[in-house]
């Protein structure tokens, strides 16, 4: 599965999708879910929480290991995907649909400055080779 061109990415393997209402959705990439394996638990941040870029704000746990999820930009959490409470495995089956939380960025330009699909793929390639 390739990384969708319409998304932005972080070096810590989150994907970021700009929504029409000015919020962004955040999930983890295909590469990240593949490394972690079968997901069994997701802990999302509280709605309303103010986050700084690169701050630990959520956790995904696979059978194998726990991994921190980092805020891609500064902003406030506006929603969390409660579906993941009962079906964390949807992160494995469809990582780019399984958003974990939404946030309202303080500065939309911060989102534009994240990695594009090509730059992210180059990063993954450099980590795996």
């Amino acid at each position, binding site marked *: 599965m390739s990384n969708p061109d319409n998304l932005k990415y972080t070096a810590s393997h989150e994907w970021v999708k700009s929504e029409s209402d000015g919020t962004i959705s955040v999930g983890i990439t295909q590469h990240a879910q593949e490394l972690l394996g079968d997901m*069994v*638990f997701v802990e999302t941040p509280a709605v309303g929480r103010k986050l700084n870029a690169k701050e630990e704000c959520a*956790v995904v746990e696979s059978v*194998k290991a726990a991994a921190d999820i980092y805020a891609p930009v500064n902003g406030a959490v506006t929603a969390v995907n409660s579906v993941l409470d009962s079906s964390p495995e949807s992160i494995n089956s469809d990582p780019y649909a399984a958003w974990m939380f939404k946030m309202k960025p303080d500065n939309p330009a911060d989102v534009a400055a994240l990695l594009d699909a090509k730059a992210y793929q180059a990063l993954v390639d450099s980590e795996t080779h």
Partner: protein
Amino acid sequence: MTLKQTPLNAAHRAMGAKMVDFGGWDMPVNYGSQIEEHHQVRNDCGMFDVSHMRVVDIKGEGVRSFLRYLLANNVEKLTQPGKALYSCILLDNGGVIDDLIVYFVSEEWFRIVVNAGTADKDIAWMKLQAAKHAPQLSIVDHPELAMIAVQGPNARVKVWDALPGSKELTESLVPFKAVEMGAMFIARTGYTGEDGFEVMIPAKAAPFFWATLVEKGVKPIGLGARDTLRLEAGMNLYGQDMDETVNPLESGLAWTVDLKSERDFIGKAALLAKSPARKLVGLVLLDRGVLRGHQQVHTAQGIGEITSGSFSPTLEKSIALARVPKEVQIGDTVQVAIRDKMLAAKVVKYPFARNGKSLI
């Protein structure tokens, strides 16, 4: 450092395995979904490459009396040729050097299977003790032997199907017993809580046997599922649930230590000198989350620590083994520190699951 490879390395890669560095060995952690692999073993059967484990043969006159002194469990329990025994091997202070399975082949030949990461240390210790107490013995390890574990309710039938002649030899084999078949050694043992065989086979023949099992429909299972299977089955993992800093009585292994007989063995005096202050218990997490090794366990009687924790695919809950103060009772509710939270867990008697079923 170059990772060591088993004779099945190419076969794993061809089957799409995700390979990881497992104590210096390049091993398959899973071939797809670890949870599906887990259920595959509980419900049908699957096979594991455990060729990284080491076979050590001790041969010569007086091998039984040497092992009576070397091992914490009592090899006098082995009266029939082929019978196997689980045991710890201890330091003088009672710390656990390793856990192993010892097979009684004949009065002049006992075979031991030890863990991969501890094999060299174990063999050095055995040779040191033999030099002092039984210099006539030969202690020879067999890295040229591969080992394939086929486990699950249908495992034996699949092995019989894949290995002509094996049914006649092994159909009447009771659990924890083994038999030689040419250059192979077939044992009705395992590390999953399911029925099955562990087959020791010359490295050169291992890829063919593996491929034959694949043809018969046996699915490969990675070390990831091996860990959740053994945890559900309540089987200790060396290096996590016990090591040289703890003794077997504090590791849920009192049943493997014979302190009643007159027999002396290495570590016995230390075990008798001090009664254990801690014990190993099972935990089932009541809140949402996942228990992991090294998380602190807060009990009314003091603080303990999780030694192994994961998600149990059979129970669909998180489970763990934890070393806690000995006063903690089955049924108690304890608090586990997970990141910035304290989550409730129930103290239970383990195993958690065996033979396809939850026991909780």
